[in-house]
């Protein structure tokens, strides 16, 4: 089951693989790890405990009955903490630039009703500038869908568009703080509680 989740999740994008060895149920290896041993706990080793829903626990858990989206959320949280990846913003010498978008006003109903994901995408854009890749990462939606949404907003002149690459590139390389990790964990748990999952 875990192998299937790792292989099919577009959000994980094959960055994790299952290693079938060791004294635990499963060892999941991130692609940034070039070597690993099931018998050596490294600083980058994270334990994910299997627990029943409702049982008290601390740390990372995979709750029974299992839900794929919860494991994916957990792995993405671990990834973000251990291997913070800078947002890809091209340098001044690049041939193309990255635009950042923010809403001028909350979009009209006729746009939001075109797709059920549009309302949440608008929610992300209502709190400051985001680029296309940010939207894809936050929402878990396909890039084409996010692009179509931005185009629909742009056609109605509902977007501020900024290039802002220098400041965004600098800030995005700062590793996630403990507070950010806690907030991510909280949002993931609340999403699970409410029966929500990202696509």
């Amino acid at each position: 089951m875990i192998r299937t989740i790792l292989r099919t999740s577009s959000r994980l994008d094959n960055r994790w693989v299952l290693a079938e060895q060791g004294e635990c149920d499963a060892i999941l290896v991130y692609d940034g790890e070039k070597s690993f041993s099931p018998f050596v706990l490294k600083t980058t080793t994270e334990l994910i405990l299997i627990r029943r829903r409702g049982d008290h626990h601390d740390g990372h858990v995979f709750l029974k009955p299992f839900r794929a989206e919860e494991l994916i959320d957990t792995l993405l949280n671990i990834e973000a903490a251990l291997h913070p990846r800078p947002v890809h913003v091209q340098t001044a010498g690049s041939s193309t630039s990255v635009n950042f978008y923010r809403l001028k006003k909350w979009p009209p109903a006729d746009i939001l009703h075109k797709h059920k994901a549009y309302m949440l995408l608008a929610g992300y854009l209502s709190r400051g500038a985001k680029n296309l890749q940010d939207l894809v990462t936050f929402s878990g939606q396909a890039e084409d869908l996010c692009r179509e949404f931005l185009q629909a907003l742009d056609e109605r002149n509902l977007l501020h568009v900024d290039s802002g690459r220098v400041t965004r590139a600098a800030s995005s390389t700062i590793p996630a703080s403990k507070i950010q990790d806690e907030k991510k964990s909280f949002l993931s748990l609340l999403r699970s509680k409410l029966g929500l999952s990202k696509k």
Partner: protein
Amino acid sequence: MKEFKLVFTGTTGAGKTTAINAISEIPAVKTDVVNTDVTLNKEFTTVGLDFGQLNLANGDRVRLFGTPGQIRFDFMWRILTRDAFGLIILIDNSRPDPLSDLKLYLDGVVKELSETPCVIGVGRTELHPVPSIDDFATALEKIGYVIPVVPVDVRQPTDVILLIELLMAQAEADL
């Protein structure tokens, strides 16, 4: 164990108590009294605050607070909203001037709005479609806010969850 706070505010009769009841995992604690305001079509109204709770899988809790709607309790809106994870403003579209109602509640928490995710749920839009949701968005734009505004029926848990989902999207965008 950590505790997070989610605040429901808005006009009297907009459904704050109902919204909390729709999703709370504990019987909501109410401070309702007999309504003596003849302009309100309801038997009871909240004079203190409502309280509900969601229990997360790791033992953390989300406390759900509903503020009293009356303006004389506006000091409580600010106190409760401080350090909240999110703020839900519920507006009753059957009232005489819903857009002024919204402005009143936004003014009441103006300092908190810059840091606290906020979403506006407009109720009773089926029988009272004016002002429209787009009218709310335009009114918000005029006073410098871009805040999600959606029609809701707070008796439906899915509608309340959508409001929270929009708060979570904003919180994620802030990370």
